[in-house]
Structures are given as structure tokens and as C-alpha cells.
């Protein structure tokens, strides 16, 4: 394989590779960001409504099962081609896992904690912002991690709607040029590294913003209670 790589091509196209990588990051960031912006309010709206929650995550699952190429194709008549349909398509894919994780996180807040919070005189809004959302953060971040890894891979397809990104290396420079291997391998390696790096970063974020879950409970002996 190593002999099949045209290192010279890589050397000459450094700027293009960097641009494609940045464009890819932009697609992933915007797609996941948009999905979070939609999923969190939806999850908040349906968290106490079993039917609503089923409908919301069911819809998101159905959207998820649409073949990705077809989904991007459906977006073209409405949004044309370019970054906009690409980001929208990616957001649709990320929605399902984010809604499900956020609802799970919100529902996982222990009932006694909510009762104590209300009993102390927190308003509904204060309970939401000071108790429910902070406690759902680990689950939401887990959803973001899963959505991010997935989106890094799917975003290579955005090239079909001229969305740019690493797909350009793989398709335009590789597949369409008589299966020129070098850009295909470069695009793949960068995508994999990007997914792993973003995942590590998000794990770091998770640890920083949830200090309470980091400390492993070293429960003192009950008799000291």
C-alpha cells in the first residue's frame, strides 16, 4: 500500500488537503450544532410526555433510515446545492441519537432530587436550568460524541451536493480520477483521525463540566454517619 501512495501528490496539494479538512470540520460542527439546537428543545418538550417522546424519537429514527444519498438528493430541490443542504442533511442524521440521549438524561434525574429542589422553592424554570439540564449534561454529551463520530463519516457524502469537505478528496480527486488511491487514502485517514480526536476532546469536555461524576464515591463507613 505504501508504495501505492503518491507522496509527491500529497506534497503538492497540501493546501487543498488542509482546506478540505477545515471544510469537513465546518460541516461536522455546523451539522451537529444545528442538531443539538433542535434536539435539546424537542427533548425538553417531550420529556414528561411518553407519547410525545415516542413520536419524536420514532420520527428521528425514520429520518435516520433514509439512505443518505437519497436524503441529500431530496434536499436539492428546496435548498439547491452547496453547504446549506449538506449541513441540513447531517443535522437530520444526528437528530435521533441526540433526542434519545437528551430525553434519557432528563428522565434520569432522580425523583427525590426534583422533589427536594421544588420543596426548597426553586421555580419550574430554576429546576430546569439549575437541576435537570446540568444533570442531563453527561447523557447529552454522550449523544454529542456518538453524533460527532457518525457525522464525520457521513459528511464525506456531502460532496454529492457540492458541500465540500474530505469527500472532495475521496470522490473528485480519487474515485473520479480512475481510482487514484492517494487522495482516497488521505481523506480516509484524516476522517478517522478527526473522529478520534473530536471524541477525545469531547471526553475531556465531559470530565471538565461534570466534576461531580468524576470523583469515584469513596463512601465512608456508614457507622460514622
Amino acid at each position, binding site marked *: 500500500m505504501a508504495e501505492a501512495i503518491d507522496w509527491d501528490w500529497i506534497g503538492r496539494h497540501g493546501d487543498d488537503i488542509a482546506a478540505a479538512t477545515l471544510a469537513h470540520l465546518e460541516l461536522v460542527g455546523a451539522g451537529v450544532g444545528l442538531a443539538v439546537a433542535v434536539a435539546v428543545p424537542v427533548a425538553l418538550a417531550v420529556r414528561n410526555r411518553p407519547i410525545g417522546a415516542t413520536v419524536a424519537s420514532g420520527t428521528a429514527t425514520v429520518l435516520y433510515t433514509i439512505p443518505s444519498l437519497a436524503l441529500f438528493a431530496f434536499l436539492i430541490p428546496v435548498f439547491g446545492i452547496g453547504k446549506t443542504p449538506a449541513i441540513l442533511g447531517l443535522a437530520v442524521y444526528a437528530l435521533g441519537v441526540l433526542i434519545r440521549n437528551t430525553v434519557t438524561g432528563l428522565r434520569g434525574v432522580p425523583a427525590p*432530587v426534583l422533589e*427536594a429542589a*421544588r*420543596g426548597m*422553592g426553586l421555580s419550574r424554570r430554576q429546576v430546569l436550568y439549575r437541576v435537570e439540564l446540568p444533570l442531563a449534561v453527561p447523557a447529552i454529551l454522550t449523544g454529542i460524541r456518538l453524533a460527532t463520530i457518525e457525522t464525520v463519516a457521513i459528511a464525506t457524502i456531502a460532496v454529492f451536493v457540492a458541500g465540500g469537505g474530505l469527500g472532495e478528496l475521496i470522490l473528485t480527486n480519487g474515485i473520479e480520477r480512475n481510482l487514484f488511491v492517494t487522495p482516497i487514502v488521505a481523506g480516509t485517514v484524516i476522517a478517522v483521525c478527526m473522529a478520534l480526536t473530536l471524541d477525545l476532546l469531547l471526553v475531556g469536555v465531559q470530565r471538565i463540566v461534570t466534576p*461531580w461524576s468524576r470523583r469515584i*464515591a469513596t463512601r465512608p463507613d456508614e457507622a460514622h454517619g
Partner: protein
Amino acid sequence: MSGLPTAAADVGLRDVTKRYDAGSPRPAVDALTLEIPAGEVCVLVGPSGCGKTTALKMINRLIEPTSGTITIDGRDARALAPAQLRRRIGYVIQQVGLLPHLTIAANVATVPKLLGWERQRISARVAEMLDLVGLPADEYGGRYPSELSGGQQQRIGLARALAADPPLMLMDEPFSAVDPITRDRLQNDFLKLQRTVAKTIVFVTHDIDEAVKMADRIAVMRDGRLVQYATPAELLANPVDAFVADFVGADRALKRLSLMHVSDLALTPAPSVTASDHVEVVHSRLGGGDLEPIDGYLLLTDAEGHPQGWVTVSRLNAGGRVGDTAALAAQPLLQPQTTARDALSQMLDAGARCAAVVDVNGVVAGVVEIATIARVAHPEPMEVSVG
């Protein structure tokens, strides 16, 4: 209640009814009327489903009554928005419900923060509260709830409820989720605390022993209704019906004894003699009615009056001294603050029909007889009608 840091509030429930479901045959709470005087611990007790927790939660409006009025210090609880009202009422629940993502200090600071206290006042108050419950801020303030034991968490729950110095505290089975030893310690610490803070406390439990221990007044509930509202002693002495009698248990006489202390009992003067007393002198004192043996026994003490043992009158050697005769051990020795129940238990344990009571210096103050305890366990003389 003058001279205390904050006034305690009196609480009144008038004809309070809660019907969860309009179609259900009986309300969860049915026309409950209860006056709780300021500074008292009122325990709502009854079997599960009797409406005690619903009654409690209507006071801070976590549950809204269907009808009736609840007043706190004469003011209708509906005069304030629910959140505003709750900030003025301490709330402690069985599962504690500490906010797991906040440190212990931040948890305790919750209500003062909601009330807009200044930062310095809050941190001073938090330190004071944590000291009060025996978990000093230096050591525990920065920890998270999951790092504490169940008993410690409930102490923090208590500190948090007390932080804004509310005149009223609601406690829903606060000590039920911990092991018996921790529970006993929490109860004792809580009672000690209550003697200094003197809040009005409404306390829910299903455990009659806990109710008897904690309460100034006990409200026994059944099927949403108040069956009896009385002091623990009254309740144990005169249960209004078979249900209450059954609920307080077959051992209610023993429970009554646990409410009394040796200092409350009528002591018999101790028939004290010392080892150096001449038997003749003892006999002449016995003859003169100056010395009244108990069950044929005299209490042997040293010169300072510390009990040494019991000697039998009939075994005293004529011509000798009291000390020549072997004495039975002076067991048990009772303190004035020993409960009558513990006193009885110790006497049964030692096989003794009487026991010496000593003061703080160990000097004999009198003698408790089992018959005296038996008499107080049953408040009214048993009358047997003949013919």
C-alpha cells in the same frame, strides 16, 4: 419563645381535604383539622396510605388541597406564590435529594441563594450549619454528595433545610432510610438540635416508636382522617379506640415507661447502713422505725454514701458489725436521667426487685422498687368490680 434566634410559626389546618380523583370513594385526606403550636414537634403517624405524607405536602403546597385552609402564623398559605412560600419552610425527605452536581457547601447554600443573601453571609451561614450537624465545612464543604454515607447525607439534608432559618420545618420520614444505629444517633442529634433551634416541626413517620421519641404531639391518622391528636404520654395511656391501641402496640406500657425518667418516679428512702455499724444499733433503729428494710434488705454504703451492696437483715450476726455479713452486689445502680424503661430492664436483668439511685457524685439518693415502676406504667388504678 422569646430570646430565640427566630420565632417559630404556628401551623393550622382547618377542614383540609385532598381528593386526587373526583370519582374515588374516599379522599386521600379527609377534613383534617390540626393546630400545631409554635416550637413543637408534631408527628403525623399512621399506616401507609393514611394520608400523612399528603397532609404534610399540602403545607408547603407541593400538593394543593381540594378544600380547606392552611395557615402559617395565621397567614393563609395561598397568600404567597408556592416557590416563595417554600423558601420559608425547611423541607427534609427520606431519600434526602441532595443535588448531586453541587458540592455540600453549595447544597446547603441553596435557599439562602434563592433568597438573595450576600455571598459572605451565605458562606458564614453554611459553615455554621455544617458545624451544627457535625460535618465541618473545612473537611466536607467541598465534597460531592456521592462521597458521603447515607447518614452523613441526611445530616446535610437537615443542614440545608435549616440554612435559611425557617420558622417551620417539614420532615417526611427523614430517618427511615438509614440503618437502626445511624437512625438512633440521628434522632438523638436532631432532638438535641431542636432544643437549641426550637422550630415548629411537622414530622411524618410510620414508626410509632420514632413518633413517641420525637413528638411533643402525635397525630394518628387512618384512611385520611385524624383519629387521635395527643401528647405521647396521653396517647399511650388513653388510646381512643382499638385501632390506635393496636397501632401503638401491645407494649404501650413499656413505651410509656420510656417517656419517664427515674427522677420522675417516687423514690423509697434508702435503708442505708455502713459496714462499721454495730448490728445491735441497726436492730434498734429497725425497731424504732428509723430504718425500713426493703424486702428484708438494707443498703450497705461507705461513709460518703456510695452504695456497696445489699445485706439481708436476718443474716446479720448478733454482736458483730454489719460488715461481717456477705453482701449482694449493689446492681443495678440507676441515674436520675435513666428512663423508667431502662431502669426496669436493668432490674429484670439483675434479678433485683429494687435498685439504688445515685446522684452525679455517686451518692445514694433513694431506691426504686419494681412495684413503683409497675404502678406508673399503668396510669389508672385497676378497678375490679365485684358482684
